């Protein structure tokens, strides 16, 4: 027996901001506001537990590649 919904969830790309590395450059929030938000101090965090809808995977990679502090990682 298969669980298509569950398995597609598990296959989803996830992003994570390491808050000990984030210095508030805000590149991720500017490039992918659907995936990241910032707090009152300007520090970033991932939205929706970091789950990246398929259509936004390129944006997630872009955010990773533009973080000056190497603070964002992708888990497939």
């Amino acid at each position, binding site marked *: 027996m298969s669980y298509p919904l569950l398995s597609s969830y598990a296959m989803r790309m996830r992003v994570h901001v390491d808050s000990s590395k984030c210095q508030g*450059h805000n*590149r991720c929030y500017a490039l992918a506001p659907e995936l990241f938000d910032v707090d009152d101090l300007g520090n970033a965090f991932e939205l929706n537990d970091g789950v990246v809808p398929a259509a936004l995977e390129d944006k997630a990679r872009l955010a990773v590649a533009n973080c000056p502090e190497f603070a964002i990682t992708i888990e497939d």
Partner: protein
Amino acid sequence: MTDTVYGPVTDWATDFDHGAPEYNANIHQIWDDLKAAGCPIAHTERYGGVWLPLTHDLVKEIAYDPSRFSSLTPVVQQLKPSQARELDPDALGAPIGPVPPISSDPPFHADARRILLPAFSPKQIDPLRKEVEEICNKLIDDMGDADIIDAAVQYTQHIPVLVVAQMVGLPLSDADRFRGWVDMVLGGIGAERTEERLAQFQAMDEYLTKHIEDHIENPRDDLTTYLLNSEIFGEKLSPRHVFGTILLLIIAGIDTTWSGIGSSLWHLASNPVDRRRLVENPEKIPTATEEFLRAYAPVTMARMVTDDMEFHGVQMKKEDRVLLPFPAANRDEKQFANPAVVDIEREENRHAAFGLGIHRCIGSNLARLEMNVAIEVFLKRFPDFELDMSEQVTWSSGQVRGPRNLPFRINVRA
């Protein structure tokens, strides 16, 4: 006291002078030559001993290591910190430094910075867009219908001054005076300590002290009053601290963005293909702005060595200064594909124009907004312009690099 070294540079690997006008004018050639000669860290006896690391790895390692590399002296001037303290015993020492939080070290730094961060977060800064657009459009209106303009003198230099003055609650009519201070503090780093220079610093001190006293008596809805009401470790910020932070916002907020906008417009005046691409596709401006920030990063910061040590094969001494050339890190081929090429559609761009680590430029959101809007408005009003070859483009000297004259011929106005 070490003898001060003045005069022309003989060898950029062992005798560089980051305050000499020819440094900023030939900066890319100088770095390329040093790296080609196998010199990842250059040195000079000038300014009491300064190191210049040139790779992204080294710049990042130093920026991430505040215990060995203190931020006490973000600008390398002729006097070492201990000499400066002899002359001004009241100056704030480590870990606060004269202009907190840029001159502060952990753990004090984080608390001093946290006070300022909310005022500069994206959600506070984004709503300023309309105001910046108005400033930019007004500056262009004021140019009338002249065919030849100086975009640095008539445009770029005014934008950040007006924005910062408004935030801090300083009269906009004194904008020229603030620009004068910026030249004095940042442009004159190699200058000798003359009576005239001291008198200029004295005048700046008096002006800002009066500004702060006036805000104590008449609180207003601006950053100065906000700082005066702020607390650190359960106590109000000292007047010295508030003074230093206001000075920092003026000095760091003006020259840097003025340079960033200026270099971007200089590039567009010199590269008609890029200019046309952005005129036709203004939605590409934010990506282009990031590339201008990478390729023409205006700011080099500095650190002070806290103790004698060996660092990647060189012997550093306590109180030596270390420049952090973020623009050189941005041209490291290990980090960027074809770093010498300015590609306004470069997508992967983790440039370090706003620094790395705990001292990330606190005004980066504001600077980006000002750059994006200034470029957008300029291209909209002047879709076709070029350098006026009969006049000279001049570059600043010192740790902030940007064009101070931008003679443009305007071919089309909209």
